[in-house]
């Protein structure tokens, strides 16, 4: 199941892992992405903790964790190829994977149809 936040992050639940990134809409708004500051593996996050930074030519955007949990993997390919987020924001451009998250926190997030409606409302 895939979830979305009003801050334009996506969360894909895959077994006991939550894979996270920024949405295609966010990537388009930012423009060419030039730098991604990734979280560190092993970091324990609570909802709202700063997870990283995504920078484009014109702007920098902080990314906050939509879920609590432990960072078990980060997408190191973004260090040299941050443009992967422009090319494939919701697949190859994933940012990190969390485990030990609280499934009840997913209830606060939007599903795909809800996010589409939210985008239209902007």
């Amino acid at each position, binding site marked *: 199941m895939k979830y979305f936040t009003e801050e334009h992050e996506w969360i894909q639940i895959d077994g006991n892992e939550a894979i996270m990134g920024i949405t295609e809409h966010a990537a388009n708004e930012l*423009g*060419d992405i*030039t*730098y991604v*500051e990734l979280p560190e593996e092993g970091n324990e996050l609570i909802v709202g903790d*700063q997870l990283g*930074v995504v*920078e484009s*030519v*014109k702007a*920098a955007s902080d990314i906050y964790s939509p879920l609590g949990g432990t960072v078990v993997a980060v997408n190191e390919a973004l260090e040299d190829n*941050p*443009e992967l987020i*422009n090319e494939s924001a919701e697949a190859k451009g994933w940012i990190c994977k969390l485990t030990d998250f609280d499934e009840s926190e997913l209830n606060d997030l939007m599903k795909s149809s809800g996010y589409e409606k939210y985008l239209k409302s902007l």
Partner: protein
Amino acid sequence: METAVRNTPLTECHIAAGARMVPFAGWNMPVQYSEGIIAEHNHTRNAVSLFDICHMGEFRINGAGARTALDHLLARPVSDQQTGICRYNFLLNPAGGVMDDLIVYCIADDEFFIVVNAGCIASDAAQFRQELPKGIEFTDESDATAKIDLQGPLSAEVLISLGLDADRLPKYFHFNNVKTGGMSCLLSRTGYTGELGFEIYLPTAQAENMWNLLLSDSRVKPAGLGARDTLRLEMGYALYGHELNTTVTPLEAGMGSMLNLDKYPERQFIGSNALRGPASDKQLVGIMLDGRRAAREGTIISNIAGEEIGIVTSGAFSPSLGKAVAMGYISEDFNCGDKLLLNAGRKAIPGQITELPFYQSGSVRKKL
């Protein structure tokens, strides 16, 4: 006070081409088109791009004594500027602070065309009107004049293939009156990208025809203000409102040698007493950062000991170099290669003072 954002004569062309429009200096301007800033930047470095610069202002100053009057109003000499030559210059306040940086075109012995920043049109016009002696005519031609920049190593070939005689192409920082596609325009070999390029001035009513004529050459693509900014930053060119403002002097901005203060020790101009006074320890420097992460305007610069020594005025990822670069003012003696820390956000970004321009391979001075 709410001020309406103005459209250029090309706004509809930009929207039709899929541009993302942003307000800039009171104008509704394209920051990028559909391919994005980095693609537009690279296309300018490798081929040729077209920029809508209609927001900038144009003044005409003429009448007997215009040359002498401008020589007093501007920081670089005008007295020795020959007809057909463009010269980068500064309008200063009495304290030597930069009111605007501009380009003066010497049209005739006592006739000059001056191109100024969009955000400074009103204050510059007020200064000229106040300081020019009676009898010298000052006209603000900004609304009647369109400005389109064609920039990139292929720009000369594009103009030639549109029918312009190669021998009518002006040399670096020269201009000519030319006719292309049935339109008369002033063409100067100037720009803000570090590449071989031209700036084209023509009546506003013809802007759209000229824009479309140039884009009819498939090598030419439009580029927005985003690419214009990364291109100029890689060249270390100052941007008014960032590196230049009324609190810094051209000497602090590293442009003292242009002023020829030693060559003309007796020359008096507005700001000259301040510039000849005690030297400031503030200096504009180029900083190459150690990675892709950028330090933005306002970032504090520290030395390796952690002491605050300055502030960033512009910073961005440099598409041509693949790493971030910045410019800023520091108030400490330095050498190229000195290490610095840029205190952006949670982690300081290391960098070092670097000779400008950052990008050394531009075609700007290419001989035609």
